[in-house]
């Protein structure tokens, strides 16, 4: 199919007319640069190399506070990222509350970057934020197109995806 890259990876998660903006690494970088209080959320699908290292580089390069979901904590803690662990539904629940002061207590985040959460529960969480968190933008840099995000990488094969992550992680 011609537009395979921008049909949601699991095609039936299409929720309505609003679809995510397809982004390249360059656009993703612009979003991160523009954000005042971005947050990187790393899930259990990226707890092994090479994406473990690629994700770590991104966090380090952009000095992003990191939340891990499920049992991704151990891998990223071992990488020295000093992450905070929440369940994916817990962090989304906090992100949707405009009064929450963020992981550093410095105010609610204005950009949530997701990488490595299980696709369908991630999609549900992105839907929550799409509906109930107008105060923040969501960006997904998985190898899957997430239509419920504000901005998403397209569906890709591993090699292209690693290149995308490398670009954001090293410039």
């Amino acid at each position: 199919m011609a537009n395979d890259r921008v049909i949601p990876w699991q095609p039936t998660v299409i929720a309505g007319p609003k679809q995510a903006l397809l982004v390249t690494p360059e656009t993703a970088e612009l979003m991160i640069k523009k954000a005042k209080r971005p947050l990187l959320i790393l899930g259990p699908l990226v707890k092994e190399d090479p994406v473990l290292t690629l994700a770590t580089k991104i966090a380090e390069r952009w000095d992003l506070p990191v939340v891990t979901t499920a049992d991704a904590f151990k891998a990223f803690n071992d990488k020295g990222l000093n992450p905070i662990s929440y369940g994916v539904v817990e962090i989304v629940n906090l992100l949707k509350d405009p009064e929450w002061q963020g992981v550093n207590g410095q105010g609610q985040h204005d950009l949530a970057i997701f990488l490595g959460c299980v696709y369908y529960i991630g999609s549900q969480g992105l839907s929550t934020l799409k509906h109930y968190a107008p105060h923040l933008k969501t960006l997904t840099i998985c190898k899957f197109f997430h239509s419920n995000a504000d901005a998403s990488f397209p569906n890709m094969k591993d090699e292209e995806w690693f290149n995308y992550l490398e670009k954001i992680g090293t410039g």
Partner: protein
Amino acid sequence: MIVVAPKPKSKPKDFKDDFWKKKDLKISIGEIVEKEGAVSEKKTPMGPTPKPHVTDLRSWDFKLLSRYEPFYAPFCDMCCLCTFGKCDLLNKKGACGIDSATQQARIVLLACNIGTAAHAGHARHMINHLVEELGEDYPLDLGYNIDIEAPITRTIIGQKPENLGDLKNVISYVEEQLSHLLSACHTGQEGSNLDFESKSLHSGIMDDLAREVGDLAQIVALNMPKGDGDAPLIEMGVGTIDSSKPVVLCIGHNVVPGASIMDYLDETGQEEDLEVCGICCAAIDISRYNDRAKVVGPLSRQLKFIRSGVADVIIVDEQCIRTDVLEEAQSKNTAVIATTDKMCLGLPDMTDKDPDVIVSKLLNKEIEGALILDPEKVGEVSVKVAKILAPEREKLKLLPELDEVQKLALECTECGWCNRVCPNNKPMMEAVVAAGTGNFSNFEKLYLNDVCYSCGRCEQECERELPLMSMLAKAGEKLAKDEKFNIRAGRGPVQDVEIRRVGAPLVLGDIPGVIAIVGCSNYPDGGKEVAEMAKEFLERNYIVVATGCGAMSIGEYRDEEGKTLYEQYSGEFDSRGLLNIGSCVSNAHISGACIKIANIFAKKPLEGNFEEIADYILNRVGACGVAWGAYSQKAAAIATGVNRWGIPVVVGPHGSKYRRLLLGRTDKKETWKIKDLRTGKIMDGEPAPEHLIYAAENMGEAIVMTAKLCIRPTDTGKGRQIKLNHYMDLYKRYYGILPPDVHLFVRNEKDIPITYKKDVKEILEEVGWEPREIPQEPSLMGMDGD
């Protein structure tokens, strides 16, 4: 007004032996007091809410909902329920004025109502049938070890049911409430998400009632195990089915048709001549009725087993059956008999026809299948058809040969859409590509433990129309032959004596919790994880109770010595007990056990006393449900029902698609305030349990969260140490460090597990922890809203 249950007849209950007297016990079980050999009924005071209407428990719901706020995850931005729409509710209201949150809550109510209706319809059908057979006065006698026979009914309805007729009246009340609840889903009715949630919680306890009376009816009338911890082990697994015999497969949940088949075989002396097996809860319930019936396995086996062609006749009753079962069966020349009004499949109604005429029409293909609403006839027709059809079908019991699978696999274009449409994105394409080279190991990995639960979506998508499920079934065929497991027959309720034994250690925390592994097989990564969870908690001295597909998945795991968990652990309700309670409807006995703890151990009156009982369970009974593969509307109703009783539930990642969770916030201290009923003081509480319904992303997270959700404010220092020790152990295993929130659960130094004393003290110092006062009778009652 509906009179639900007649007043208790004056005749005292006869104990079947002198169990109590031998032990010289003077006991009080609810309102029944035994004195010097005589048993007499004591008038039970009626609580404030007998037979509550939709809004009568709203204040309790609002207390729960202010602590555990609804978290919505819309599955769809749109509403398409009326002709104003479709309406896009993303940051907009619909034409009727509804907003997104309220719409989600409305859909949750709709789902709960569908689930409740499924159980109520099932119970109504069964009770009517049994009343017709045995009469309304047929007594509800669960034997001498169970006097609190219907804790949910007693609490909600306010009366003790005595016989089948009383159960019928309970169902009438459920049906009445259900019509009000369903009505609220209509356009232009409820406009508040919280009120929708309250109604969902009400629907949930209606579901509890329906399940309780449904299961009690079948237990007493069909003589199923009555709380027997030593119920027989039942053969389970595809490998246990002798396909050289005629095979009748029952799919669904209603025991009546399957029981009739067993009866017919017994009556005609053919019990050794046929194999009767089941998938899903029908399997569990038929094997509770007759231990010769075999269990194929959970729902995840359905398509694979039908495609294997082993079944000569398929009997479908109701719930969770593939709606294309007729088409699938026809492709294997398997006869299909539909047996309830819930699923007629477009088949001709043959109920009034002579059984031999039906047999003839089925065999001669004059009809595609038969709808037979008379269970006795189902028994006779299915056996006769299977016997004649089996020899003709011998060749159809074979799947395509492996070289044929390889040939088919070579047609794959590697488009990858099979992987994308798989609910779990499992690597079907890679399995097909490998099969094309003669390597079937990837297929086998998908087959084992139902990692692929054979929904068949991949087949629907395949541009080459490859029969992927048949290819999978063939590749797994040799593994299927080794699938010989067992499951303990569903035992039904927990006995009162067991509650007496474990009430104190459970409430004080010495037994760290009751883990209820329930629900369907929509697992994220196969059924083995369920067995692993059960094993983990059993080894840690929890009580593990199970029902339905969850109970089956637990039995599909063998240790190094080849033993299943059911062979390794006792079936008693005690520390390290593994109990198969029964089918979906038997879930009622799990909430029932918690209610009985409040009644038998704490002497809380049940009748019409919902809020006090739920408040007790929420604050004191360390129970947690795990519905790792929940997929159905029934599972939504079950979880919502147990939530209203104050029991938290962990669902798998697919559970997020129910659109609503109930999550606590540890950072909002004010939401955890409680009242100490002993002193009347409002005081700071603790996040125990932290969430009411929670979706975990993977098994590790679920195990850790489940252990945490067993913590309760009334744990003694020793009990809290035990619970924290498990929580910390598990957290450390999956996260590599000690839980950073441990300070929230340490009230004073006596709570700190000895093994972790030094580490915990460091954490406490770091966060500026100070000891807290421990409430003696923590409660949400008497707080704001009362």
